[in-house]
């Protein structure tokens, strides 16, 4: 049981680091998805541990919301790409001092 949660933690950390390190917007998004998946794993593991299905329902909802989020997020990335011709996260850096 603990090993699943540890694995989830490790995946989450890797996803978080990826958000910080990668510059391509789509890859950053993929790392976010990785984080979500890590949470899903934790949910399911705890569902099994507690003996009820609430964790699995939660994981299910996470998936649905992730799907909606990916749709909108990728649409945004595409729109930005159309106008700026660049998919790098560092290019949108005007909100600075």
């Amino acid at each position, binding site marked *: 049981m603990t090993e699943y949660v540890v694995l989830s933690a490790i995946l989450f950390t890797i996803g978080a680091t990826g958000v910080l390190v990668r510059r*391509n917007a789509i890859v950053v998004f*993929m790392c976010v998805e990785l984080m979500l998946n890590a949470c899903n794993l934790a949910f*399911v593991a705890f569902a099994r541990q507690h003996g009820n299905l609430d964790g*699995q329902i939660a*994981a*299910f909802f996470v998936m649905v919301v992730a799907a909606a989020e990916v749709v909108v997020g990728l649409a945004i*990335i595409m729109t930005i*790409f159309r106008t700026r011709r660049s998919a790098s996260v560092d290019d949108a850096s005007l909100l600075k001092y």
Partner: protein
Amino acid sequence: MIAFWVLAPVMVLAALGILFVRKAVHAALLLAVVMISLAVLYAVLEAPFLFAVQIIVYTGAILMLFLFVLMLVGVDASDSVVETIRGQRALAALGGLALGLILVIGVGQMSLGPVFGLDVANRGGNIEGLANILFSRYVVAFEVTSALLITAALGAMVLAHRERLTPKPTQADLAAATVKAYAESGAHPGALPAPGVFARHNAVDTPALLPDGTPSELSVSRTLMARGVVRTPPRDVERHLEQNDPANDRADSRADSRADDRGGDQ
């Protein structure tokens, strides 16, 4: 357990790979590896429904969506190795390491109690059990999620929509433009010849023949030409026919020559 201990290193390595690969497509594929491994783990954790949904929805839909967008954006897009923000790599490494350590140690300190297992909950079947609580306890969340999905679809349509800034050119406009281009720069007004026309061989890699018998380079893909896999079309058609059909009589050959005359006249 075996499944876990086999898949866990795979997943971790794949995840690390997402961090380090240069091409975005490779990252997407590595994510697919992670997701499918997760699906198997769900199955191990007595969540067969989620196992299926993970593969269908996550890997099958969401990841494919990623790949489509990647293709639109440019599959060649790759990050440079040089980091532009000062100290970002160090911060990221430090932060990641710290977070990972804290979480793992914290989890290690916790005692999670006995594992009940899902035998009781899954007694009527996993899907039935999920359906039971989904439509009783979580029905409001369910409804709200449906609204969310509709909103997301609409949002995507709105965001991806391109408004025409100029009026759509009609057929007449297109035709006029073609003729104008021909008048100004001698660009060919017609369509490109299809491969194998008059060459008696309509494979993609056989060029068409121009009226004077020379092959037309416009009729094959430039890629094939660049690769050097374009065939030479047969030069002497009549000889080819005679050689291949000795049973044909003079009537046929007269008819053929008359047909040829006609074809030549025409």
